[in-house]
């Protein structure tokens, strides 16, 4: 038995007790989280405390692609480069597996606490990602709450969907189209549409040119309310007169907010609502 002076023994016991009592909190929630992907930003801003967020992505400030521009401008932003990230001395970095390879390689080499997220191709994966980010931020209960809200929104859309689904196609710039195996397609089908993309052989993402589109047109064509880049090829194809010339009983264009088309997580709530609204007006 060690011979300890009494006060040393008491001090040791106090320290051990405190350590034991706080061991569940050993996972210290990160205090400087940097996200370099606008879709992850949207989840992060819902589940983390503002003081935990060190920076978001610059693209969250673009109203054409982000839903959180008003909230995002209160945070510092990066252009998603490794240099900026390191300068912020983060204790957690959230990135997409499709972020710039060079940036990811550099961050890994510098031993940053980097967590990568793949493109969510289903509602389940999106829900898992929400939970993961909430847990990483130290607030798992907020992740569960957010998933609850998302599921409620999806359920509402499902209830409002009619028995006979209408064929539809999401037609983005350059003729870019999401196929059956994408998340946006799942939400679309849930809301009462069928995805026409399979008629053109598109499974994940693909480009559909106008001749192919005219050959088997969907009943509803969702086109983005466009960027103001008149004349660029990417916007010319969706502004092509052929899309508006078809009689509405064959195909009708339905303008769709562009910032709902690229992200998962909390974006699914307004996305489901928009599809339901489109269903009603068709």
């Amino acid at each position, binding site marked *: 038995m060690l011979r300890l002076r009494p006060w040393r023994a008491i001090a040791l016991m106090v320290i051990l007790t405190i350590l034991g009592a706080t061991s569940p909190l050993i996972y210290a929630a990160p205090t400087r989280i940097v996200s370099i992907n606008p879709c992850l930003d949207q989840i992060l801003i819902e589940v983390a405390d503002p003081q935990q967020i060190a920076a978001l992505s610059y693209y969250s400030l673009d109203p054409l692609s982000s839903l959180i521009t008003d909230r995002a401008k209160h945070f510092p932003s990066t252009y998603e480069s490794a240099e900026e990230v390191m300068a912020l001395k983060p204790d957690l970095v959230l990135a997409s597996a499709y972020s710039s390879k060079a940036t990811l390689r550099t961050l890994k080499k510098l031993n940053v606490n980097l967590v990568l997220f793949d493109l969510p191709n289903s509602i389940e994966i999106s829900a898992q990602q929400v939970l993961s980010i909430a847990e990483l931020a130290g607030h798992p209960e907020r992740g569960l709450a957010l998933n609850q809200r998302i599921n409620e929104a999806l359920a509402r859309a499902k209830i409002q969907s009619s028995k006979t689904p209408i064929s539809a196609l999401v037609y983005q710039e350059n003729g870019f189209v999401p196929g059956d195996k994408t998340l946006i397609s799942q939400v679309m089908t849930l809301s009462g549409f069928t995805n026409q993309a399979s008629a053109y*052989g598109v499974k994940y993402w693909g480009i559909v040119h*106008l*001749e192919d589109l005219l050959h088997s047109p969907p009943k509803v064509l969702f086109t983005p309310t466009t960027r103001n*880049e*008149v*004349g660029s*090829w990417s916007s010319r194809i969706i502004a092509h007169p052929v899309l508006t*010339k078809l009689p509405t009983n064959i195909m009708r264009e339905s303008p769709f907010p562009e910032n709902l088309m690229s992200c998962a997580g909390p974006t699914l709530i307004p996305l489901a609502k928009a599809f339901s609204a489109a269903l009603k007006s068709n």
Partner: protein
Amino acid sequence: MLIAVVTLLSILSLASGRIWIGPEQWLSLDTLSQTLMWDLRLPRTLLALMVGASLGLCGAALQGFTRNPLADPALLGISSMAALGAILSIYLGLSSLEPWVLAAAAITGAFVGIVLLILLSGLANTITSFILVGVILQTLASAGVALTLSMSDNPWASDEIINWLLGSLQDRSWEDFLFALPGVLIGTAFIMLTRPALDALSLGEIGARALGVNLRNTQWLLVLGVGLVSGSCVAATGEIGFVGFIVPHLLRPLVGNLPSKLLIPSAFAGGAMLLAADIAVRFSPGAQELKLGVAMTLIGAPFFLMLLIKLRRQAA
């Protein structure tokens, strides 16, 4: 004879695409097919003919003026400069002001290209220096295109680069055709005005001056003409090369060497060639159509090589 070829090809073009719509069906089309023919295939056919004719004409005129067999708007960097002009106007937001601004910006780019070409290749007008200047302009302009697009916020920027630099007629509309038409018509008029001067130039500069040709005027007419024509075409289709280069060479054995006699046949042959190439790319295997600019390069590069070998043999 060329007119017959063009007519035949036009009919073929209207019928071709992912779905074959032969002439026998043309009188009994349903709404969808009507829209397809009228709004997609017809503008595409007319655009192919117009752009092909323009490029053929420009090539013949440039080759006559510079007395250089390698002259062609794309090879000399004029088309790239036009593309640069167009892209700058898009990303500076100017093209959204008025619908014709895009074509005007492409034309301006082409003007700058030709003026630079004339200034830089000026006195040392050997074949090598000419091509060198062309390569410089091409590189500069392509770099400018990439730079502008890399600074843009648009997530589709890299697709945009491909579309401008590789040239295509897919998904074009009547608007693309109609906005290019005025520039092409006016430019063609200017080029046609230079016919006597081009003939005189085949005697050399001194010979031409002796015949009373005002070389300065000819130069500016050509600058305006080629600039207007190639600029308008690039605004509609992106960069397409080699048409202006190949066509005059193919026709010289048939029509003779006199530049003025080459102009109109080059236009027809250029139109026919581009339309034929466009029909061919519509039958590309696989999901994506081959870009027309790429197809022309595949045809043109071997031709270019053959010509260089022939020139080397002549010089040796």
